[in-house]
């Protein structure tokens, strides 16, 4: 059995849907001012259908403080949800439609009061059909329901049949239940603060397991985890883990979270742990037979997190050149598996470029010159040294830039071949790029052509 509650004068600050939840957990928001509830199984709570309807009307008149709406409502109960909706919207007070006797109750309603949207019919189509019915002399629900089914189907098609069943109160459908919005967040307040990471991992595991179960239930994944720790010193430690691909594996999340907390530990003991995630649709990929293997996204994320812990977050990623002429200007982007690209032509043998190995930071050098040309170089650093006679030289090439900034540069660059310092060595000279800063007149070795 279904009950439709209809009211046109519900105050804007009150919700008819919330009111309906007091009687049944299965609620459909049918239209503005009308909700339909499934009342099967409510007998133990409210008694018979008539008693239920009376209770609905009584409570609706109560003040909002007592859980009411301070409004008059129409209540209709029927075996058919659509019949209940028609009865509640067109008949005042309480209406009980007995099963199989829908037409007795609804038959006299004018045909243009048919709620065609309940049968999934568009307004334009419905109006055309109503006009046709008017020309045929069909005025009421009962007239329409009495027409032969085959004839309606021939003349008005499947849409006409659906409207006829609606008028006869014979439609069968499930309620479109209002689902409460899912919440993908979990929180836990601790009796005693925790200062170590290992005990925290058990709590993370539990919260993540619940989060991933919720995501799994809705066939969703997440690409962002938000961790909030309320600390003993009344501060909040917040971390946000962005993932390049949506995932929902709680084991991977736990490892990533622990690695992140190890790299960025909270400054005080933890009192409350809150975990939330942003739900998104899961990633769907189609692999190819002839596409080279790539790392699994979840394994790659874990590996990158471990590497970041080992060498530092700023030392890992994909290089990208900056749009400037400044020497050795680049940035590190987060490494993300690229999407599939169209196959490219073989570049074999096309790019035999002379490679450069950078010395970072540039090696401070002492350079002897003759008429401005380098003749002897000596430079010592912690990891490398360069010294010897300059046997070949090319340059200088002057570059300057960013003169309006603090970190401007202006220098003369040279390519030099430096013979090994040891005279007995038969090694060919090594090739270096050196430069002299124009403002400080200091020499540096920038790198080695290799």
């Amino acid at each position, binding site marked *: 059995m279904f009950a439709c509650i209809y009211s046109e004068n519900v105050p804007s600050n009150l919700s008819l849907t919330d009111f309906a939840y007091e009687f049944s957990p299965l609620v459909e928001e049918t239209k503005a001012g009308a909700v339909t509830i499934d009342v099967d199984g409510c007998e133990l709570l409210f008694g018979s259908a008539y008693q239920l309807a009376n209770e609905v009307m009584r409570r609706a008149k109560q003040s909002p403080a007592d859980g009411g709406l301070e409004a008059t409502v129409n209540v209709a109960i029927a075996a058919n949800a659509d019949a209940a909706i028609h009865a509640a919207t067109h008949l005042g007070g309480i209406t009980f439609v007995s099963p199989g006797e829908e037409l007795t109750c609804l038959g006299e309603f004018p045909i243009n009061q048919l709620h065609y949207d309940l049968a999934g019919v568009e307004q334009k189509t419905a109006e055309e059909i109503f006009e046709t019915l008017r020309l045929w002399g069909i005025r009421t629900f009962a007239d329409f329901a009495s027409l032969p089914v085959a004839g309606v189907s021939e003349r008005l098609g499947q849409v006409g049949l659906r409207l006829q069943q609606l008028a006869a109160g014979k439609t069968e459908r499930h309620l479109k239940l209002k689902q409460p919005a899912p919440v993908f967040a979990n929180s836990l307040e601790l009796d005693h603060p925790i200062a170590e990471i290992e005990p925290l991992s058990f709590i993370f595991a539990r919260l993540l397991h619940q989060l991933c179960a919720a995501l799994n239930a809705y066939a969703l994944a997440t690409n962002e985890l938000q961790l909030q720790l309320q600390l003993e010193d009344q501060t909040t430690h917040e971390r946000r883990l962005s993932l390049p691909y949506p995932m929902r594996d709680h084991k991977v999340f736990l490892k990533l979270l622990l690695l992140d907390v190890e790299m960025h530990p909270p400054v005080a003991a933890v009192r409350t742990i809150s975990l939330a995630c942003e739900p998104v649709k899961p990633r769907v990929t189609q692999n190819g037979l002839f*596409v*080279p*293997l790539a*790392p*699994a996204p979840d*394994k*790659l994320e*874990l*590996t*990158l997190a*471990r*590497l970041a812990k*080992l*060498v*530092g977050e700023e*030392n*890992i*990623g*994909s*290089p*990208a*050149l900056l749009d400037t002429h400044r020497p*050795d200007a*680049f940035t*590190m982007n987060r*490494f993300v598996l*690229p999407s*599939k*690209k169209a*196959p*490219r032509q073989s*570049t*074999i*043998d*096309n*790019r*035999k*470029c*002379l*490679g*450069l*190995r*950078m010395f*970072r930071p540039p090696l401070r050098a002492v350079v002897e010159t003759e008429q401005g040309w380098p003749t002897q170089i000596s430079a010592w650093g912690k*990891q*490398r040294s360069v010294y010897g006679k300059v046997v*070949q*030289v*090319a340059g200088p090439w002057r570059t300057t830039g960013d003169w309006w900034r603090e970190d401007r540069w202006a220098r003369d660059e040279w*390519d030099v*071949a430096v013979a090994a310092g040891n005279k007995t060595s038969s*090694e*060919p*000279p*090594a*090739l270096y790029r050196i430069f002299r800063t124009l403002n400080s007149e200091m020499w540096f070795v920038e*790198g*080695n*052509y*290799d």
Partner: protein
Amino acid sequence: MRSALSKAEIEANIASRFGDAFKIHEKAAPETLSSGIAEVDTLSGGIPRGAITEISGPRSSGRTSLLYSALAYATTHDEICALIDTNDTFAPASAAAAGIDFERLLWIRCAANLEHAFKATDLLLHAGGFGLVILDIGDVAGKEARRIISSWWYRFRRTIENRPTAIIVISEEACTRSCAALTLELHGNGEWSRNLLSSNSVNVNRCRPFWPAFNESQFRAHAVA
């Protein structure tokens, strides 16, 4: 003699039942990845997958040119590559000129920490899925490189065995010992024209596997503006 004969008899009797269980299986030739330089590929047959390749030589011997060339080829052929840069010497501008697709390159800078470099390599190899992993210890002094314990190399070799990953080790002196399936030794000589550094003429010697008849090749890496 009697026991040897009886062993042969036993094998002959049960060979029909157990198929080719007593045959000696020849190891299939390893899959290779091009180095991007035809002369090197002709000499070495390409960079073997599932094995270690060592490229050694002094400064300006052409190691980096060969490395960039191999990376350019691999990244433009949909391989995911990783470079473990022990001494932070990778030059993005020079690499871009060589044609490396940075989207497919994971660059790990180890700030001259050799231990971190080896641990990072180990993590990457265990993650799997990389087509080419390069461990650059080219600026590590020979004395220090010789101190690297062999177990690292055995571990790497064992990890990538039967996997499509190739490892290239760039070093100043050969240090992988018997763990490398291919060892190339490079020597370069800068070529100057009209007072400009025009190219580096690189001699490539294959030390392992050694075939006396065909063991040397040469290529020229050109300077780019």
